[in-house]
């Protein structure tokens, strides 16, 4: 089994926030904490693009590097998890994460800033699998039930893919091959614009800028 990853197809995402709702519901995530959110570029402008963002379970995770109490670990499947009993809620991981994945509840044992909460790839935490303690601290452990994360499985357009990086990038590649375009949407050209165009504008339909195809993000 290779590394578990998420991949969001910006061509398919319709900004329905179903993934956000599924995550909240499945893991009983407290009010004010969003493990997953949908980001829209050029919102309201024709050609807008949305992607669903959560912890990307980085292969070389900056949150792990900066944690002063070393509460992060990477599971055998490449899922980045943490031990809430050890977390001191310092927020370093929040500053280090390029995706804004670590979330801090506004109430709890530490008063203003509680222990960090983030997407677990529906893999729970270090508590016994499927236990009440695990659910209370980390949410449901779907992976141990042989299921994939709720957000990806609930996605109505299957824009959000979750699973083994090799498998989901192959699914995405097949999709792009069928529709003839799409690899240009996800990445550089969307964020910085085409080489000679205005920055931040999504490329016009049918125009494929010279950007290499991207697979699963780390």
């Amino acid at each position: 089994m290779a590394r578990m990853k998420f991949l969001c197809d910006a061509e398919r995402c319709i900004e329905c926030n179903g993934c956000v709702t599924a995550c909240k519901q499945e893991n009983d995530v407290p009010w004010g904490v969003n493990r997953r959110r949908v980001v829209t570029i050029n919102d309201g402008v024709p050609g807008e693009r949305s992607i669903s963002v959560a912890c990307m379970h980085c292969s070389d995770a900056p949150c792990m590097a900066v944690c002063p109490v070393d509460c992060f670990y990477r599971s055998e499947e490449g899922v980045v998890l943490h031990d809430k009993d050890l977390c001191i809620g310092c927020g370093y991981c929040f500053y280090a994460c390029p995706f804004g994945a670590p979330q801090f509840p506004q109430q709890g044992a530490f008063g203003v800033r509680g222990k960090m909460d983030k997407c677990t790839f529906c893999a729970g935490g270090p508590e016994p699998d499927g236990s009440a303690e695990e659910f209370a601290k980390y949410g449901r452990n779907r992976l141990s039930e042989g299921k994939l994360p709720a957000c990806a499985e609930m996605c109505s357009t299957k824009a959000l893919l979750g699973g083994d990086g090799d498998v989901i990038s192959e699914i995405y590649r097949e999709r792009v091959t069928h529709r003839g375009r799409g690899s240009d949407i996800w990445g550089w050209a969307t964020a910085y614009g085409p080489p000679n165009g205005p920055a931040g504008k999504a490329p016009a339909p049918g125009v494929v800028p010279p950007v290499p195809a991207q697979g699963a993000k780390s």
Partner: protein
Amino acid sequence: MKAGLVLALAAAAAIALAGCGERPQVVTYKQGSYQGKPDKPPYDSAPFNGNRSDWENVIKTRQQKQNEYRRIGG
């Protein structure tokens, strides 16, 4: 007087040359070692009870359900 001047020049030279020393400009982060409770693999508990290949097959099947071209035919 002369000895003092030599000493002052030597000190100034030492300070000036200290700026020529080369130090690495890129920070290399070291991953810490996990200090928390150990976790078990997802296939360790029920319903798979340690049967890894069974768990992997279930996950593989599940992953392909995200591919419409395979699930309902392209």
